[in-house]
C-alpha cells in the first residue's frame, strides 16, 4: 500500500453533470481518489450521494443521459474514459469485475449457475471446454459453496440469497481480475449471511492481492472490512483517509454526523423492563399460531410454512418490545396477526383482558383505533392519490369524529412530527422518505392508540434520517405512554430503542429478555450467532463521534 508506486486505479477530478430538471446540476463533482493493489477502499454515503456513480462510470454502466464532463479514470496509467467500447469490453470482467447488490437480478434465471460462470470465460476467449469446466468447479469450491458438483447444475432460484451472492462473486473472480467493484453486495442479505460474505470478500482480496472498491451505506460494514474510506455527500467527496482515522477521528462534520447516527446500544436497560407492574399490561399474546398453506390439490402436497408457532408475549404500557429476526423468521407475520391484518390459526390475543383473536373483522373494527401500525415502506404506505390532510383525517372520520376536530388534530400532529403546516394540502410524492415516514407516524397517532406496532419502520431510511425518526418515536412514546412493538431485522436499532427484545427464528421465539441479556450474555446458540454477526462490533461510533468532537472544539 505504498503511495510511491503508481496506484492501480486512479480517479482524477471526475465530474458527471446531470441533465436539467434534477435537484442539483451534477451527479458527482470533482471526485478524486486512488485505489492501490491489495486494499479495500470503502465508498460510503447516503442515498443520492453519488457513491455508486464512479463505480458505474468505471464499468461503463452509466445511463445514456449521463456523460462525464471532466476528469479521468486511470487504470494502470491509462485513461478508461477515452477508450473505445471494444477495449472497455475486453477490460471488463478480465481486469475489472463487479458484484451487484441484488444477486437474484444479477443472475440469469434460465441458466444454471455453472453455465453462467462458464459463459464469462467463454466470451473472454477461453475455448477449451474441459479447462472451463474444471475452473467452474474450482471457483464454486473457492467461494465456499457446498457440493459444487451438484450445485453447478442448479438454477439460481434454488439457492439462498447468500449462495447466490457467492455465485456472483465466483463469476466476478472467473478471470482473476485485479480490481473488484462491489456495489452494496450485502445490503439485500441477512446479517449472518452478510458477515459470511464480508469474510469471503476479505479472504479473496487478501489471497489474490486485488484492489476492492466497496460501495456501502453502512458504517458497521466499513468498520469490518475497510482499509481506506471515502465519504461522499451530495456528489462530493467530503473526507478520505485510512479507515482507522475516518472511523475514530472523523474531521468533516458530515462524517461525524453520519457516525453519530449509527444505531447503538443505550447505556443501560430501560426502567420499565425491570419494574413490571401487573396492572398495566396492555396486550398479552398467548400461544399464537399462524401457518401458511399454499398450492396443493388432489395429488400435490400443499406447502406448509409455520410462520408463527406458539408465541406468547406481554406488552406493558410505556414499554417497547423489540422483535428481531432474519428474513423468513415470521416477525412481520406476527405483527400482522396481532393487528388482525392476517387471521390467526389459534391462540389468544388479549387486549386489556379481552380476547380479540376470534372477533370478526366487522366486530373488531371499532377497536382498531387503539392498536395502530407504522408500515415499512414510506413510499407504498401512503395513497398517492390523496393529499396528506386527507390521509390523516380519514382515520378519525371513519371512527365518527367530526371533520373540523379531525382537521385540528391533523394540524397539531403535523407540527408534532416536525412537518410544516403546508404539508396538509400537498401530495405524498412531494416528500422525502423520512418526511413520509413522519406522515405515517402522524396517521397512526391520529387515533390516539394505546398500542403501536412498527414493522421495519426505519429500515428503508438513510442512517441520519433513521436516527431522527427513532428519536421522534421515542419522544412520542415517552409522552403518550404507548406500548410499542418494534419489529426489525437490525439488531443495532433494536438495541437502541427497545426495553425488551424477543429473537425469532422460523416462527418461534428462541430468546427473550432485556437488551443487556440479549446483547451481552445471549443464552441461545442462534442469538449468539446473530450478535456475533452484527457488523462493526469492535467499533463504538458514539465514542468516535464524541472523541473527535472534543478534539476539534
Amino acid at each position, binding site marked *: 500500500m505504498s503511495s510511491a508506486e503508481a496506484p492501480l486505479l486512479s480517479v482524477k477530478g471526475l465530474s458527471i453533470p446531470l441533465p436539467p430538471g434534477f435537484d442539483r446540476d451534477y451527479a458527482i463533482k470533482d471526485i478524486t481518489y486512488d485505489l492501490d493493489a491489495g486494499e479495500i477502499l470503502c465508498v460510503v454515503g447516503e442515498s443520492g450521494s453519488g457513491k455508486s456513480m464512479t463505480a458505474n462510470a468505471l464499468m461503463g454502466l452509466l445511463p445514456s443521459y449521463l456523460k462525464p464532463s471532466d476528469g479521468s479514470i486511470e487504470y494502470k496509467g491509462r485513461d478508461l474514459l477515452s477508450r473505445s467500447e471494444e477495449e472497455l469490453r475486453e477490460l471488463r470482467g478480465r481486469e475489472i469485475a463487479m458484484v451487484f447488490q441484488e444477486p437474484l437480478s444479477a443472475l440469469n434465471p434460465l441458466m444454471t449457475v455453472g453455465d453462467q460462470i462458464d459463459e464469462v470465460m467463454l466470451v473472454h476467449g477461453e475455448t477449451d471446454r474441459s479447462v472451463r469446466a474444471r475452473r467452474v468447479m474450482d471457483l464454486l469450491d473457492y467461494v465456499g459453496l457446498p457440493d459444487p458438483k451438484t450445485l453447478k447444475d442448479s438454477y439460481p432460484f434454488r439457492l439462498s440469497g447468500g449462495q447466490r451472492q457467492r455465485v456472483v462473486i465466483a463469476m466476478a473472480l472467473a478471470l482473476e481480475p485485479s480490481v473488484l467493484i462491489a456495489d452494496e453486495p450485502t445490503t439485500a442479505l441477512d446479517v449472518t449471511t452478510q458477515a459470511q460474505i464480508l469474510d469471503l470478500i476479505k479472504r479473496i482480496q487478501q489471497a489474490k492481492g486485488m484492489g476492492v472498491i466497496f460501495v456501502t451505506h453502512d458504517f458497521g460494514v466499513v468498520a469490518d472490512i475497510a482499509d481506506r474510506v471515502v465519504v461522499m455527500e451530495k456528489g462530493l467527496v467530503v473526507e478520505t483517509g485510512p479507515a482507522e482515522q475516518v472511523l475514530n477521528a472523523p474531521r468533516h462534520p458530515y462524517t461525524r454526523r453520519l457516525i453519530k447516527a449509527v444505531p447503538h446500544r443505550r447505556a443501560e436497560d430501560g426502567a420499565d423492563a425491570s419494574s413490571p407492574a401487573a396492572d398495566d399490561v396492555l396486550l398479552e399474546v398467548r400461544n399464537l399460531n399462524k401457518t401458511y398453506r399454499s398450492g396443493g390439490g388432489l395429488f400435490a402436497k400443499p406447502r406448509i410454512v409455520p410462520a408463527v408457532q406458539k408465541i406468547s408475549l406481554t406488552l406493558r404500557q410505556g414499554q417497547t418490545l423489540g422483535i428481531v429476526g432474519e428474513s423468513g423468521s415470521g416477525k412481520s407475520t406476527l405483527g400482522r396477526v396481532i393487528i388482525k391484518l392476517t387471521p390467526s390459526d389459534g391462540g389468544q390475543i388479549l387486549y386489556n383482558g379481552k380476547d380479540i383473536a376470534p372477533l370478526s373483522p366487522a366486530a373488531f*373494527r371499532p377497536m382498531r383505533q387503539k392498536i395502530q401500525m407504522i*408500515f415499512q415502506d414510506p413510499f407504498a*404506505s401512503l395513497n398517492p*392519490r390523496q393529499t396528506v390532510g386527507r390521509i390523516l383525517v380519514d382515520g378519525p372520520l371513519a371512527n365518527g369524529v367530526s371533520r373540523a376536530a379531525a382537521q385540528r388534530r391533523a394540524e397539531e400532529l403535523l407540527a408534532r412530527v416536525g412537518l410544516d403546516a403546508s404539508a396538509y394540502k400537498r401530495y405524498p410524492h412531494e416528500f422525502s422518505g423520512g418526511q413520509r415516514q413522519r406522515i405515517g407516524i402522524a396517521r397512526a397517532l*391520529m387515533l390516539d392508540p394505546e398500542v403501536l406496532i412498527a414493522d421495519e419502520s426505519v429500515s428503508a431510511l438513510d442512517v441520519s434520517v433513521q436516527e431522527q425518526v427513532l428519536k421522534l418515536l421515542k419522544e412520542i412514546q415517552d409522552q403518550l405512554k404507548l406500548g410499542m412493538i418494534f419489529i426489525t431485522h437490525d439488531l443495532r436499532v433494536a438495541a437502541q430503542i427497545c426495553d425488551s427484545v424477543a429473537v425469532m427464528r422460523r416462527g418461534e421465539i428462541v430468546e427473550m429478555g432485556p437488551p443487556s441479556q440479549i446483547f451481552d450474555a445471549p443464552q441461545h446458540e442462534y442469538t449468539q450467532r446473530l450478535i456475533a454477526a452484527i457488523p462493526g462490533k469492535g467499533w463504538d461510533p458514539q465514542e468516535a463521534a464524541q472523541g473527535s468532537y472534543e478534539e476539534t472544539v
Partner: protein
Amino acid sequence: MQNLKRFSQNYGAVLGLVILGLIIAMALAAPLLFPGNPWRTVAMPLLRPMENPDFLLGTDMLGRDIAAGIAHGAKVSLLIGVVSTLVAVLIGVSIGALAGFYGGRVDDLLMRFTEFFQIIPAFAMAVVLVAIFSPNIVSITLAIAVVSWPGVARLVRAEFLSLREREFVQAAIVIGQSGPRIIMTQVLPNAISPIIVTASLMVATAILTESALSFLGLGDRNMMSWGFMIGAARTMLREAWWMSFFPGLAILLAVLAINLIGEGINDLMNPHLRGRKK
C-alpha cells in the same frame, strides 16, 4: 379551476375536446343544417363530392345526401358508444372490484358468472340479444353493454388484487375504514387510469359494433347511423369510395377524440404527472 388549467395545457386533450365538441355540435344542429329525413332521396344517385355545391360530400346509390347522413348519424353513434360504455363500465367495475377486493368465495362466484358471458362470442350474443328484443336504440345499447363488460371486470379485478396488498390499503384497514369505503376512496382512484384507457377504447368498439349490427340489418330503422352508411356502401366500394370514406372518417375522428380526452383525464388524475412539462 386548477384542474381546468392543467387540462388546457395538454394539447392532445384540448384537440380531442375540440373535435368531440364539433361532432356533438353537428349532431345537435343536424335538424337545422339538414332539415328533413336523412333517409329521403334528394338528388341524383352517386353524385361525386364537390360535384354539386348543394351536396358537398356527394350522394349514395339511392340519391341520399351523405353529409346529411353523417350529421344525423352522429347522434346515434355517439349515444350508443357513450351510453353502452358507461353501462358496461358500471357493471364491470362493480363486479371486478368486489371480486378483487374480497377474494375467496365472492371472487370465485363472480368470476364464474363473468366467464359465463365470456365463453359466448361477443358479437353473436349481441346479435341474438338485439334480435330477441327487436332492434331499437335502447336494445342495441344494452346489448353492446352486456357483451362488453366482462373485459372491464377482469381488468378491474386484476388491479384490485394487486392494489389490496399495498401498504396504504392495509393502513386503511388498520385505521378502521369499512370495506366499501376502502374500495371507493383508496383502491378505485388508484385503478382509474387503466379503466379510463379501456373505456375510451370501448367507446370506439361500441361505435364499431353498432355499425356491424346495422350492417346486418339490425340497426334502428328510424335512425341514420354511420355504421349503416358504411354497411350500405360495401357493394359500391370501388365505384363510390366517398360513400364509405366519409362515415369512416367520422368514426375515426370521433374515436380519436375520445381517446385523446381519455388520455388527458388520465394524466390529470395522476398527481405524479402534475407539473409534467410537454
